[in-house]
């Protein structure tokens, strides 16, 4: 069933869009990543213009994140205090990021900038997560059920900073400065790279802040809802590139996928979840790196100066 999208001005099969939304929603619910880093390339691939793909992708991520977060909220997997601190940092970061984005666009190198940052961050985070979770899984297997003896949490430099605050749900008593800085970094990256930032936020919360994996997904989704809502609104007002009909189809598929993803995520162990996310992140990283290194089939590209 073909459907004509009023803003994208293309006619695309409605079931294809539902399926696409479903796959991305599933991953979103499972890992707590928004899925922005998947939906945008997929939309481009099926012929949606780039501006519309970025803006509408953000709108779809809002819905998938809300759906996923509500499931996490039921099982008390959202640390609202932590989420709010991250969000405040995120807004500061995205404010700076939007400026950098405009600057790189003016230079005509935004594509390269985005691709390089993707390869760098995805490679770094994916690699780190992959080896860490592999080690944990191997160790657990060797020791049987006996988990390594650990303190409730490890005291790091984050505990010596001032402005300490109690994050009850996460069971942490740390300074607000590290989460604020991480939030700002993610906000900066998401505004300049055009993604929600969940794939950076999730590992950063686990490894840098020591937030338990149990609450990481929900808290990350909580933060993503606000950053992507902001992005959607900015695009709608500045460039009129949000396609409501396209978003609706992706959302219907996405929210259902997110529900299934959340249910699957509860059945899996934390290490398994982390290793799967690491593999996904590394796969995307590898694909982008290939695009940069291999000679493209078509060297020329056409960019309309004014969007149709």
């Amino acid at each position, binding site marked *: 069933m073909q459907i004509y999208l009023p803003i994208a001005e293309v006619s695309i099969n409605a079931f294809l869009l539902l399926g696409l939304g479903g796959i991305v929603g599933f991953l979103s619910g499972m890992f707590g990543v928004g899925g922005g880093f998947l939906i945008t390339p997929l939309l481009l691939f099926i012929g949606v213009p780039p501006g519309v793909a970025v803006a509408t992708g953000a709108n779809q991520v809002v819905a998938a994140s809300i759906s996923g977060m509500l499931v996490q909220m039921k099982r008390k997997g959202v640390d609202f205090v932590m989420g709010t601190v991250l969000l405040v940092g995120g807004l500061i970061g995205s404010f700076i990021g939007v400026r950098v984005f405009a600057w790189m666009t003016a230079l005509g190198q935004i594509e390269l900038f985005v691709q390089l940052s993707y390869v760098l961050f995805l490679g770094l985070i994916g690699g780190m997560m992959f080896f860490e979770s592999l080690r944990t899984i191997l160790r657990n297997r060797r020791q049987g059920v006996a988990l390594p003896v650990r303190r409730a949490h490890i005291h790091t430099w984050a505990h010596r900073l001032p402005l300490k605050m109690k994050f009850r749900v996460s069971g942490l008593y740390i300074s607000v400065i590290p989460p604020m800085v991480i939030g700002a970094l993610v906000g900066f990256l998401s505004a300049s790279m055009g993604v929600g930032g969940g794939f950076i936020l999730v590992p950063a919360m686990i490894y840098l802040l020591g937030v338990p994996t149990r609450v990481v997904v929900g808290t990350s989704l909580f933060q993503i809802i606000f950053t992507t809502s902001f992005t959607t609104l900015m695009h709608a007002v500045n460039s009129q590139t949000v396609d409501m009909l396209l978003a609706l189809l992706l959302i219907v598929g996405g929210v259902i996928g997110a529900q299934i993803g959340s249910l699957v995520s509860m059945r899996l162990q934390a290490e398994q979840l982390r290793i799967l996310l690491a593999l996904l992140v590394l796969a995307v990283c590898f694909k982008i790196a290939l695009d940069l290194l291999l000679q493209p089939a078509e060297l*020329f590209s056409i960019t309309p100066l004014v969007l149709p």
Partner: protein
Amino acid sequence: MRMPGVLALLVALALPCGAGATESIVTGLSQNRVQITTNYDGSSILIYGAVKRDAPPPEGARLEVIVTVEGPSQPLVLRRKEKVAGIWINRSSVKISSAPSFYEVTTTGPLTDILSSTDDLRYHISLPQLIRAVGITNDAENAPDFVQALQRIRLDESRYRMAIGRVQLVEDTLFRADVDLPANLGDGSYKVRLFILRGGKVIDSQERYIGVRKAGLERELFNLAHEQPFLYGVISLLLAAFAGWAASAGFRYLRS
């Protein structure tokens, strides 16, 4: 179809009816308006016409017909990737002040055989002439490469099409061309040009327009997005929030 009636009328018009030895064309379109609705998936337009003569057709060169359909133009930037330090990045670019979003040439024969280069230059019919006509603004060193790339990419995407030999010409008088407008169509006025030629020279030409506009829901959404962008953005977000909540509530209900 009311085609037989129309054709009869055209035949009547084509009959000799006065002095003078010139040939001219009379044309029509099956529709001069295209409405884009939600289930729009391309549409085909029948362009037909007849040659009106005051005298018997001249001996010698055959009568040929060219029909072009041209979508609204837009400015473009063409970029080319080059390998720098092992990475393929955009290096050089050329700005095209405007290029049609859609272009189809339908003819009775190969363009090089039926159209002289002087008349191509004058009427901008072939793709290289058309794009040259709309103009390159920056003078890059190898601008011709860029223009060729634009043609190649758009021919691949079927945005530009060459339908050689697809005009049906009956008894050197009646002709018809079927043009399929693509599914990825934008709003605007689509220009249809019809030429009759003999010996590579254009004898007569005519221009007509097809108005393409969105209708119904498509039109409402498009207008809202452009006239009330903030409201549109908020509605999009509310839609997302509602859908997210509904899915969550629905699944909880299903599992309980």
